[in-house]
């Protein structure tokens, strides 16, 4: 319990630091910012601590951060690719689109992992997640449908992220 409370408190205090950024030139204002952050973060933890993450102790496992650092460039690469793809489809006069909604399967189970996967799918080339079922299927709107088979579509859309996200969130 105390450990849980402490991790919530750390997250809140980090947010306060980013918002206030008390490392400027003015010494007194800096000290003020650092001190006021403590009761604010404490109050926020007390009021909203139970609402968010289920297993906050995961934030102390360093291994996850290395995988996250590895995930960021992969994500940015796919994101830029997606934007060039959309720009090409939008700007070419005949609009080469071939849309449809397909179904893919994922093995992720934790809530934060599924959220991250759905968000990644939305921001990567030609795909957008529409709905999520309880037994691990995601319905995806695909702007250029290459296959309607569940296994092949999963291989094409989900695999590149799933491997990494599994190590971060599960």
């Amino acid at each position, binding site marked *: 319990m105390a450990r849980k409370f402490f991790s919530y408190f750390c997250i809140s205090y980090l947010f306060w630091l*980013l918002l206030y950024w008390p490392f400027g030139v003015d010494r007194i204002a800096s000290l003020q910012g650092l001190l006021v952050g403590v009761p604010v973060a404490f109050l926020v933890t007390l009021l909203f601590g139970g609402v968010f993450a289920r297993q906050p102790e995961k934030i102390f496992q360093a291994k996850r951060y290395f995988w996250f650092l590895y995930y960021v460039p992969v994500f940015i690469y796919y994101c830029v690719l997606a934007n060039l793809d959309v720009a090409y489809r939008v700007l070419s006069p005949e609009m080469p689109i071939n849309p449809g909604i397909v179904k893919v399967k994922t093995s992720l189970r934790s809530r934060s992992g599924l959220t991250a996967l759905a968000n990644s799918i939305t921001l990567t080339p030609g795909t957008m997640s529409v709905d999520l079922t309880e037994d691990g299927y995601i319905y995806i709107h695909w702007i250029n449908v290459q296959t309607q088979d569940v296994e092949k579509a999963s291989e094409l859309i989900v695999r590149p992220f799933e491997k990494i996200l599994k190590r971060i969130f599960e």
Partner: protein
Amino acid sequence: MSEILGNILIGIGALFVLFGTVGLVRLPDLYNRLQAATKCATLGTCSILLGVIVNRGLSAVSMKALLCIIFILLTSPTAAHALARAAHISGVKLWNKSVCDQYAEDNDRKEETTK
């Protein structure tokens, strides 16, 4: 130097936002529009904010811009997802040249089994 790099990032971002909104106008149905616009507007705005960070260096403004990037990356796809689901449930049809709609097929099947 950092000013030039920031300006380049902002220019790329503004262009991508423009492409996204052109897609919003040109594409034929709601799901395609949502897809193109969400992708391009998200990366475009993130790129603009990144340009601001590069321009200003380490300061309070940069930290707020960083928070803004995190929030946009988290919220914008979620909003698109909620909107697509809501539109499908409220009965917006796909474009008539669409290839397949396995979501509607599965929903129909579920309704049949519950009847």
